[in-house]
């Protein structure tokens, strides 16, 4: 197992929740460390535009 994988199974969970807040609430109830990202949809790009954009950004 790599260190990245050990980080998941051998240490406490620390979660970023991106999307439905019901899942954030469910994690908090179990005393899991969690942060909710306020996500709103941006434009959906086709793959080519996405690649071009990622190169110039």
């Amino acid at each position, binding site marked *: *197992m*790599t260190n*990245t*994988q050990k*980080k*998941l*199974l051998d*240490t*406490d*969970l*620390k*979660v*970023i*929740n*991106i*999307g*439905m*807040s*019901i*899942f*954030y609430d*469910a*994690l*908090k*109830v*179990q005393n*899991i*460390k*969690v*942060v*909710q*990202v*306020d*996500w*709103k*949809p*941006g434009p*959906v790009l086709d793959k080519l535009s*996405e690649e071009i954009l990622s190169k110039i950004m």
Partner: protein
Amino acid sequence: MNTHQNVLVKRNYYRDSLELLRLSDEIKRYPGIIEASLVMGTKTNKEILIKLGFPTHEIAKAESSDMIIALRAKDAGSLIATIPKIEAILRGIGSEQTLNIDHSSTNETHDLESVLSSFKDTNFALISVPGEHVRGLAFKLIDEGIHQQIFSDHVSMDDELEIKRYAVKNRVLILGPGAGTSIINGRGIGFSNAVTTGPVAIVAAAGTGLQEVSTLLDHCGIGVRHGLGVGGNDPKEKIGGLMMSEALKMLDECEDIDVINIVSKPPAPSVQQKIIDHATRHGKKKYVMTFIGSNAYAENTKVKKVSSNRRLTRQPNKIIIASTLTSSVFATAKHIDNVSKSESTMDPIYVKIEDLKRIVMTERKRLKNEQKYLRALYTGGTFAYETQVILNGLAVRPLYSNAPLTKAQLLQDTMRSFKNSVIDLGEEEFTKGRAHPMIDPTIRKLRIAEEASYEDVAVILLDFVLGYGSNPDPVGSVIDEIRNAKLIASKAKRYLSIVAHVCGTRRDPQGYDQSLTRLKDAGVLVLPTNAFAAIAAAGIVAKRHIDFREAYSQFIGEKHLGELT
């Protein structure tokens, strides 16, 4: 009663389905309001609004990027008073900053970049945004070395493959897309149950399959430490079981795991071989391979017996094959008993043949001759699949589904059942733009009333999934419709059999025992597992009496003999 209604369409106005569900529920409690539905203008949502009796011409104007506000009130005054209140709430939600940082993090930031920089040592991300936005997020998080559970549907298989290949290269675990359930170190993520932690790990390409196996093990006093849901596409040829293999390798290294249970619809032959090869050649644990309906699948697809299958049969003490979720639990218990030299009690989840037979015969006697068909309305996709395996095996025909086992059984109109029908309400056609049916009961409520009104329907089969992430009261949210369904039938001088099973544990927040009691009090026949519920339902509608001994042998496993394959 005269009612007043209004439909408003807000152009290019996005809110996630859960916010809208909560808002709809809140507005239904306003004075004089009878019905309130705030939804995005997807095809399914528009169909539901029409079924709820709102005017077609108004609804038809909405596009999927528009929000529809549909209201019905007792009087015009209530309607007029409510609309500005909704507008105000929406403006409030729109300006609300919902980022909540707790525990160790102190910097309140709103975008992913700043969360990543302020929330150090994050090891997991749970993603439930619309599928078309997943790809970019997943790549970014892989670069950060963050393992992910992607609940979102509607991610293309091309994108899934690219994400997973990149993740394998970076030794990051991708659970999903379409993965609602995981358990890591006994903690549930997404839709999951409060199960005891113990020596079992589950790798599942079937979300409610993971929930069923982990909860049934819990009822038998056997704990689950890890449950990794890899998503339904992972065992398909195109994805090649990439994450199933990664998960197996990881779990094989865990010292506190004795048994690994793999739960999936029958994988593509190449993936199945890969899994079996791993277990037989390199595996360090005992394994249960739960390929749901694998016997029927092998017959249908004429899968040739590969060399690894021969190796498999030579290692019965290491590997057990199971074909239903219930038999999977018995197989896991058998392995655990061998490791711990103990004997687990399966009684909490077992129904004796003679008892089930008696229950079924009692129900059958109450039906009229013209009541011939079964209607299953499932929130859990794996349950819908398992039930079809069982109904096919017990020759309940003709059988149709919106998620059929074979193309010939595809239901033509998913909004309307036909003859024997098994409906998976979690399929994409029902969830685009609305919350999953484990959270939002609206569609199932409508369907229960509709199925009860048909004079040829004998049985309605239901699942109730408790646990974190699910509706706060799955039984309570439809119990009035269940009582009403029984009433509709009794007014028409017939009996309607309603069969159900509750997937959950006694520590789940919704209350397992209370859920069972309320269903039984409403006249529902409650069985301890989905397989038992499906066999019971089959027994009630089958043209000829089913052979219960044969049914148990195929789908439950000979518990007392320990012979499961």
